[in-house]
C-alpha cells in the first residue's frame, strides 16, 4: 500500500497527527493494533489539569481534535486554580473511558483519506537517510513519504505487579516488538522509562457516605470553541470522592516492599518524580502520615472506580489488603490491581523542533516515545509532527512554535534541548512566559497558524478575527475612558479599596485586585459608545480584556527579563557546526552540543551540561 503519510499508533499523538495530515489534504495510513482502542485513556480517565488544560486549549486553537473528544465524553468539568490568577486557571475534565474511545474513532473516521489498518508495525524501512515506509506484523510493506511514530508505552512494553511480569503496553494489550530494534540498528539510541497505574475498584462495594464528595463546577465550560455552549454539558455529570491513607495502611504496604519490583530492581526504567507510586511516596515522604486519594468514576455505565494517587506495582494481595483499610473501602472489591509498565523511548534530543528525527529524513517521533507522559503532551506533539510531516511533503516550510508562542513551544523546546531521562510532563512553571500563555487567549495566540495550515475553516477564522478586533478595541477603550471620582468612589469605598482623587481610566482602575471590569463597564452607557456593544455582550471577551489589563505591567516586567536573557534566540547555529573540533568546550558541553545540535545559541544555552563559558566560546566562534 502507498500513502503520503503513515502514522504508527492510535493513541492521542497518533490521532492528532492523522487528522491534521488528512485536513491538509494528504492520504494517511493509520496503523494501530485495535481500532476500538483508539485514544484509549490508559491511565487516568481525565483530560486537562494544571498546564495540561492549557495544552488542550492550544491544540484546539490550532485545529486539533482533543478538545472536542474530551467535551463529548466529559462527565465532570472543573476550572482549577480559581483562587489564583487567570494565567494558571486550568480546565480539567473526568471522562467516560469507553465513550472517549468511541468518539475518537468517530472523529478519525469523519476525516477523509485516513485508512485505519489494524496491524502492528514491526519495523521502519529507510532508503539511505530517508524513511520509505514500514513493515507490519504480517510481513507486508507499506510505503510513504513520511512516517510519524506514536507508539506510546508499547515498545517492548512490560507490565509489573509484584513478581509477576506480563508483556504488554497496557492492560490486556500486546506490546509492540521490532520497532525499537529496527531503529537502534539505524543508530538511534533507545532508553527505558516506567510509569504506573492504580487499582480499579467496584463502585457498588464502596461506602460513599464515609467519603468527601467533590462535584464538578456549577457552570461547566467546554475545552473546545467548537462545542455548543448552549447544550453543555452533553453527558450527565458525576462527582469524584476523596479519602486518605493512614499509618495502618502504610504499614500494610511496607510489608510488600520486599516484593516490590521497584525496590527489588526488577524495574530498570526511570519513573516520574512528580507522579510517584504510593510505595514511593511512603518511602520518600516518611514523615507524612496520610496521603490524599481521589476516587474517580471511569464512566457512566461503568462499575469501575479509579483510585487516583494509589498507583502501585506491589503484589496484588498487598494492594488489596491496604485498599480495604481505607475509609469507606472496608468491603471493597478490587477489580484489577495497579501495575507499572516499562517501555522503550528515544531520548528526544534525537528529534528537531519539528519533531523530525535528525538521523532519518521524513521520520517523526511524537508522544510517549519522546519520553513525555500524559495524553495532552502526546496530543500536542502528534499535532505538531503531523503538521510538519504534511508541510514537508507539500514543500511548505516548517512549523516550530517558540517558547513565547505557546506551551507547546515550551514542551518541544525542552525536549529537544534538555532531552529527558525521566517521563516529562508539562507544568506552568516551565513556561517563562507564563502570564502571556493563558487559556483565555489561546485562540488569539494560535488560531491563525491553524487557519494557515487549513486546520481551521474560513468561517471559524472569521470569528477569531472578529474576536481579536473587539479585544483590541476593548483594550484601547479601557485605556481612554475615564471615570470621575464622584462616579467611581462609592464603588471603591464599598469594596474597601482606596478612593481616587481625580478621574482614572478603566484600565487603571481594573488593575486593583478587588475591582473587576464588568462592574466598571456598568458605568458606561452603551448608547454613547456603540463600538463596544459587541464587547459588553460577550463575557469571555470582557474576561480576556480584564486579564490583559490586570497583567499588563507584570507581563512587561516578565518580557524585560526574557529579553535580557533571550538575545541569542535568533542567533542561528548551522546544523553542521563542528563541535567536536572545538576543543575549548567543556567535555560534557561538547558532547551535549554535538548530540543535540541546537538551532540557535538560545537553545544551546538551555541544554543541561552546557556551561556559560561554553556559550561564550560558541559566541566567539560564531562571530568570526
Amino acid at each position, binding site marked *: 500500500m502507498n500513502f503520503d503519510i503513515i502514522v504508527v499508533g492510535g493513541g492521542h499523538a497518533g490521532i492528532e497527527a492523522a487528522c491534521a495530515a488528512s485536513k491538509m489534504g494528504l492520504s494517511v495510513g493509520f496503523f494501530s493494533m485495535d481500532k476500538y482502542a483508539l485514544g484509549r485513556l490508559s491511565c487516568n480517565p481525565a483530560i486537562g*489539569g*494544571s*498546564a495540561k488544560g492549557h495544552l488542550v486549549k492550544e491544540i484546539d486553537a490550532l485545529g486539533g481534535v482533543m478538545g472536542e473528544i474530551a467535551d463529548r465524553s466529559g462527565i465532570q468539568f472543573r476550572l*482549577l*486554580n480559581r*483562587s*489564583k*490568577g487567570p*494565567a*494558571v486557571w486550568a480546565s480539567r475534565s473526568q471522562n467516560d473511558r469507553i465513550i472517549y474511545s468511541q468518539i475518537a474513532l468517530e472523529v478519525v473516521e469523519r476525516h477523509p483519506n485516513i485508512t485505519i489498518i489494524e496491524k502492528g508495525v514491526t519495523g521502519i524501512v529507510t532508503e539511505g537517510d530517508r524513511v520509505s515506509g514500514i513493515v507490519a506484523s504480517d510481513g507486508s510493506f507499506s510505503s510513504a513519504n513520511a512516517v510519524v511514530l506514536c507508539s506510546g508505552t508499547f515498545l517492548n512494553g512490560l507490565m509489573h505487579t509484584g513478581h509477576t511480569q506480563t508483556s504488554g503496553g497496557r492492560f490486556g494489550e500486546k506490546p509492540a516488538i521490532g520497532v525499537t530494534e529496527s531503529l537502534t540498528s539505524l543508530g538511534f539510541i533507545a532508553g527505558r522509562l516506567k510509569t504506573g497505574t492504580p487499582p480499579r475498584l467496584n463502585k457498588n462495594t464502596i461506602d460513599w457516605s464515609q467519603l468527601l464528595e467533590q462535584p464538578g463546577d456549577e457552570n461547566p465550560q467546554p475545552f473546545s470553541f467548537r462545542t455548543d455552549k448552549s447544550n453543555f454539558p452533553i453527558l450527565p455529570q458525576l462527582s469524584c470522592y476523596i479519602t486518605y491513607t493512614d499509618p495502618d495502611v502504610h504499614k500494610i504496604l511496607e510489608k510488600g516492599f520486599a516484593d516490590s519490583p521497584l525496590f527489588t530492581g526488577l524495574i530498570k526504567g526511570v519513573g516520574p518524580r512528580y507522579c510517584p507510586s504510593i510505595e514511593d511516596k511512603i518511602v520518600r515522604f516518611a514523615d507524612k502520615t496520610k*496521603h*490524599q486519594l481521589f476516587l474517580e468514576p471511569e464512566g457512566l455505565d461503568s462499575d469501575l472506580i479509579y483510585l487516583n494517587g494509589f498507583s502501585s506495582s506491589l503484589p496484588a494481595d498487598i494492594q488489596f489488603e491496604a485498599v480495604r483499610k481505607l475509609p469507606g473501602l472496608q468491603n471493597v472489591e478490587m477489580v484489577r490491581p495497579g501495575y507499572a509498565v516499562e517501555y522503550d523511548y528515544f531520548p528526544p534530543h534525537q528529534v528537531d523542533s519539528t519533531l523530525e528525527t535528525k538521523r532519518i529524513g521524513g521520520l517523526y517521533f511524537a508522544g510517549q516515545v519522546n519520553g513525555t507522559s500524559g495524553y495532552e503532551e502526546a496530543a500536542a506533539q502528534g499535532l505538531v509532527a503531523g503538521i510538519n510531516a504534511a508541510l514537508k511533503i507539500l514543500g511548505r516550510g516548517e512549523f516550530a512554535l517558540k517558547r513565547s508562542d505557546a506551551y507547546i513551544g515550551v514542551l518541544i523546546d525542552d525536549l529537544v534541548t534538555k532531552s529527558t531521562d525521566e517521563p516529562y510532563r508539562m*507544568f*506552568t*512553571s516551565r513556561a*517563562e512566559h*507564563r*502570564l502571556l500563555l493563558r487559556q483565555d487567549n489561546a485562540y488569539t495566540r494560535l488560531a491563525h497558524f491553524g487557519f494557515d495550515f487549513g486546520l481551521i475553516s474560513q468561517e471559524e477564522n472569521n470569528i477569531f478575527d472578529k474576536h481579536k478586533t473587539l479585544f483590541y478595541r476593548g483594550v484601547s477603550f479601557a485605556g481612554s475612558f475615564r471615570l470621575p471620582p464622584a462616579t467611581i468612589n462609592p464603588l471603591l469605598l464599598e469594596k474597601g479599596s482606596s478612593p481616587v482623587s481625580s478621574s482614572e481610566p478603566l484600565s487603571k482602575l481594573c488593575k486593583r*485586585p478587588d475591582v473587576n471590569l464588568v462592574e466598571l463597564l456598568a458605568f458606561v452607557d452603551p448608547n454613547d459608545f456603540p463600538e463596544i456593544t459587541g464587547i459588553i455582550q460577550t463575557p469571555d471577551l470582557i474576561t480576556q480584556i480584564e486579564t490583559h489589563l490586570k497583567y499588563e505591567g*507584570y507581563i512587561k*516586567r*516578565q518580557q*524585560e*527579563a526574557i529579553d*535580557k*536573557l533571550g*538575545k541569542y534566540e535568533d542567533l542561528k547555529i548551522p546544523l553542521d557546526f563542528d563541535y567536536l573540533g572545538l*576543543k*575549548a568546550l*567543556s567535555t560534557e558541553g561538547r558532547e551535549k552540543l554535538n548530540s543535540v545540535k541546537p538551532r540557535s545559541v538560545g537553545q544551546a*544555552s538551555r541544554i543541561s551540561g552546557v*556551561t*556559560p*563559558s561554553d*556559550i*561564550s*566560546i560558541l*559566541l*566567539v*566562534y560564531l562571530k*568570526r
Partner: protein
Amino acid sequence: MNLLEDTIAAIATPYGVGAISVIRISGPASIAITDTVFAASSQKKLAEAPSHTIHYGNIIDRNGDVLDDVLVSVFKAPHSFTGEESVEISTHGNPLICQNLLSLLTEKGARLAEPGEFTRRAYINGRLDLAQAEAVAAVISARTDASLKGARNQLDGLLSREVAALRDKLVNSASLVELELDFAEEDLEFVDKTGLTALISEIVNSLDNLLKTYRFGKVLREGINVAIVGKPNVGKSSLLNYLVKEYRAIVSEIPGTTRDIIREEVTIDGYLYIFHDTAGIRDSADVIELEGVRRSRSAIADADLILFLSDVTQGIDKSLFDELIALGDSGKIVSVINKVDIHPQHKVTGDVYISAKTGVGIADLFRILREKAVGSSVYTEKNALVSSLRHFNALSEAKNHLLNSLDSVSAHLSGEFQAVDLRRAVNSLSEVIGEVTSDDILNNIFQKFCIGK
C-alpha cells in the same frame, strides 16, 4: 586560524626599564615555539620538562647569537592561568631585549596577544568565572595593598560563592511559589506565606549588607577623591604640598593664587587618596579667577570627601560652610582649622586642627579621612566584597525585584505575580556569577585588560 588554537605572546610587565621583564606565551604550541629559541644550560628540551619547573639558559636569535640569558617557567595545561600550555620567560629588563624576543617568537609562529586575551582564555577554559575575571583586571590595576587584597578576595571567588548561596536560597523560595501554582490539586502542606515573606526579607537583608560593601570596594579600587576647599589664602595649596612632600602648587600670601585644579595621588596607610587643590572661593571681578571658582564648585560635587579649610586667625566663613552643606552630603565634609602654629589655643571649632607649615595635627587628619572613607569596618579577607559597578547594579536590581515581589504579596496578588519578580531576582543574581552570558558583559570585561596581563 582559530582563536583558541593559536599561540599568543605578549610582554607581561610594565613597559620601561626594570630589573626584569616577563614575556608570557600561551597556547598549544607555546612550549614548542619556546624550544626553537631557547638553549637550556641543561641541554634538555622544554617539551620534556614537567609542569611548574624553571629552566636557565640562553635565547638564541636568528643569527645564532645569544640575545639574553633568561629563566623560563613551564606550565602544562590545564594547570596554568589560561588553562592552556604556557611559558613565561624572564629576561633582563631592557625594552629592546623584550621587543626582539617578541618578534623572534612571532617569527616562530606565535601571535601578538590582543588586549585582555590571556584573561579571556582563562575564562573560556573555565579557569575563572566572570566575577573572577573582572577581579583579575582589578588585581592588575591595583595600586595599593588594600586594593590588592580586595581584588584577590574576589578572584578567590568569595563574592561568587556568597551570591551563589543567596541565589540557591532564592531559587528555593521561588520553587515554593511555583509548587503552589502547579500542584493546586494535591494535598501538599504549603509553606505559609509569612514564612516565605520572612525568607525573602532575609535575602533582601543579605543583599543590603553586600551592597554596603560597595562603597568600600570602590574606595579600594578607585581610591578616594578628596577636594580641598575654602576661602582664599587659608592654606589649601600649602596642605597639598605638605601631603605630597614636594612644592607642587604655588603658595603665596596673595589671595587667589590657585586657579586650576591640581590633582595629586597619595597612598596613606594602604589606601589611595586623590587630593584636589582648588581655587579659593570668593566673588571676584577677575574672569580667570571666576572660572577657577566654578571649577572648585564642580570638584566639590565630584568629591567623596571635602576638606573645608579655614584659617584659625580668620574663623569659619559661615556662608561658605552653608553653601557646602547645601551642595552635597554633609557627611562628606571635614572642617579643618589651619595655621594653628600661629594661634595654638583653638578659638575656632572644627573637626581637626592642623598646621600645613609644621605638620601638627596631620596624623589626626589622616585618621579622620580614613574613618570617613572606609568607615570603622576593618576589612578582612573573609568578607565578600562588591567592588565592580556591574555587580553593584545587578545586586541592587535583584533587591528591587525582591521588594516588588513582597509588594505583590501584600497587595494579595496570587503567586504567579510574585513569581515574575522572584525569577527576575534569580536572573540578576545569576548575572553576577556569570551564569547568564551576554555580549556586553564579556566585551566590557575583556576590553578593560591590558595585553599580557
